[in-house]
């Protein structure tokens, strides 16, 4: 209860204990993943057999470390490619959307705004499946009509990017719109009065103002794409992004090399999270 309200010492003690237990619950799975990356055993399990860096640096099987595990390294590269593409495309469309919703009025604007939000309430698996079904329909039609196989619309990385882009755009739009709403339009008008062209105004005034939101939305999009599983699972072809490669290994039962990858992932997303908080701080 509030500090200003008297309450029994037991109640207060129990409440604090509950909060402490909650944070232990939050931290537990991440902690064990990190700790077992250093366990000198072939299984990510008890007992503890002493510390090693083998799951990072190990050069040959059975203790093949992440820096020499070409399969996982390649999947990281695939994920990076997908994430960069998705981020760039999503940011471009999201910026257009933000200008559309914040600067323009047109009939049906509210309806369009609601439609823009719908990807958030479609479960990721279904979004993936629907994109898969539709793109195959198109590819089949093209093949029957022009007898040309449209490789890009068959399960593969292009489709993964398309599927992720379909919902990440919404999130990026929300972030950029929120910032654009705070912009004082008189700044643009002043610049136009002083003889700047529309393009100059956009380049020297509006976009610099939007930069923190663009960076923030970019980081969020990148992470969401990199870590996406549900939509990706349905659209993936022969090149597996990291989450899919890790999932396959997990089901087979894997060595602690997965812990090492996870630790690197945690460090990566932690760094990006810190960066996005830093950008937001500077902005305020």
């Amino acid at each position: 209860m509030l500090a200003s309200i008297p309450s029994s010492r037991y109640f207060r003690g129990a409440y604090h204990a509950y909060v402490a237990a909650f944070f232990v619950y939050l931290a537990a799975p991440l902690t064990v993943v990190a700790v077992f990356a250093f366990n000198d055993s072939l299984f990510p399990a008890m007992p503890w057999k002493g510390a090693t860096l083998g799951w990072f640096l190990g050069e040959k099987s059975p203790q093949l470390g992440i820096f020499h595990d070409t399969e996982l390294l390649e999947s990281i590269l695939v994920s990076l490619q997908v994430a960069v593409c998705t981020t760039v495309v999503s940011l471009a469309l999201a910026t257009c959307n933000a200008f559309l919703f914040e600067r323009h009025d047109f009939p049906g604007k509210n309806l369009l705004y609601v439609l823009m939000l719908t990807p958030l309430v479609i479960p990721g698996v279904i979004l993936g499946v629907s994109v898969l079904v539709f793109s195959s329909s198109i590819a089949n039609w093209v093949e029957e009509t022009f007898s040309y196989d449209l490789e890009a619309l068959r399960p593969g990385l292009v489709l993964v990017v398309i599927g992720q882009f379909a919902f990440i755009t919404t999130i990026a739009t929300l972030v950029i719109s929120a910032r654009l709403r705070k912009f004082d339009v008189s700044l643009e008008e002043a610049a136009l009065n002083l003889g700047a062209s529309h393009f100059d105004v956009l380049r020297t005034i509006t976009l610099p103002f939007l930069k923190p939101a663009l960076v923030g939305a970019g980081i969020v999009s990148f992470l969401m794409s990199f870590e996406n599983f549900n939509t990706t699972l349905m659209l993936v072809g022969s090149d597996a992004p990291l989450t899919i490669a890790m999932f396959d290994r997990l089901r087979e039962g894997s060595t602690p090399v997965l812990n090492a990858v996870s630790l690197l992932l945690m460090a990566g997303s932690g760094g990006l999270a810190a960066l996005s908080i830093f950008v937001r701080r500077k902005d305020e």
Partner: protein
Amino acid sequence: MKPQHFKFGLALLLTPILLWLTLLIALPHVDMAMISLRERVSAGTYAFSWSNYTAFFTEPLYWRTFMRTAVMSIMATALTLLIAFPISFYIAKVARGRLRPLLFLLCLVPFWVSELVRTYGWMILLRETGVLSSLLQWLGWVDGPVEMLYQDATIMVGLVYTSMLFMVVPLVSTLDSLDDSLIEAAYDLGASHWRVMRDVVIPHAAPGIVSGCIVVFMLTLGNYLTPTLLGGKDSLWFTEQIYTQFITRFNWEQGSAFGILLLILSSLIVWIGLRLSRQSFTKVMS
């Protein structure tokens, strides 16, 4: 000249968003609905049919899995709310000074990490040779290794963990807007802890509770990773059925029907939630 220019700009901005929503959201779902309503007669020829939907209602495995997924998602949502509420109240009302943003940030941290990594952590904790099993043996509470994976309770632990953020954030922001003096006034007027909660705090937090519950329910219903990894072969989650039909059995007609059914259930719950709380969709989502 000006309005002309403006209209051109509008058209330029409308084109990409309309293309996106039509080609990637609307048409794929229409196509999926159409495929779910057809039946393969022979190679390459299809006929209209409800058979994929009748199969869902006549095959007990299908609709039981569906119901089980729905019921477990509701339970997971309720549990998440129960666990998150005291925590959110602590962050919004009890914690002081620098502790507040710190605790809030700590709640966010796990969700910057991939769901796969989080679930993997639970597997290491709960498996037969896992940390918790060893701890229990070391304490002498059990005689041999205990397998805690592949049970419904384990799936629940994972689902609640994965959903926590989406409950804590809306709760903290609504509780934050509740003026402390209202709570104090209620106490001054002689209300008990319970009455203050029931008559002051919970009504004020209702919008946050509803939007948290909607998002958590939706995410749980559509989850694939957590039930599959923590529940093993017998987890019987509906998204797994969809995956099996599409990828393993290559029965896209049946899989599409399942997808549509899950989408209907999920939209229905969102709609009911919004109705009950009289909130607009736009406000809850942004």
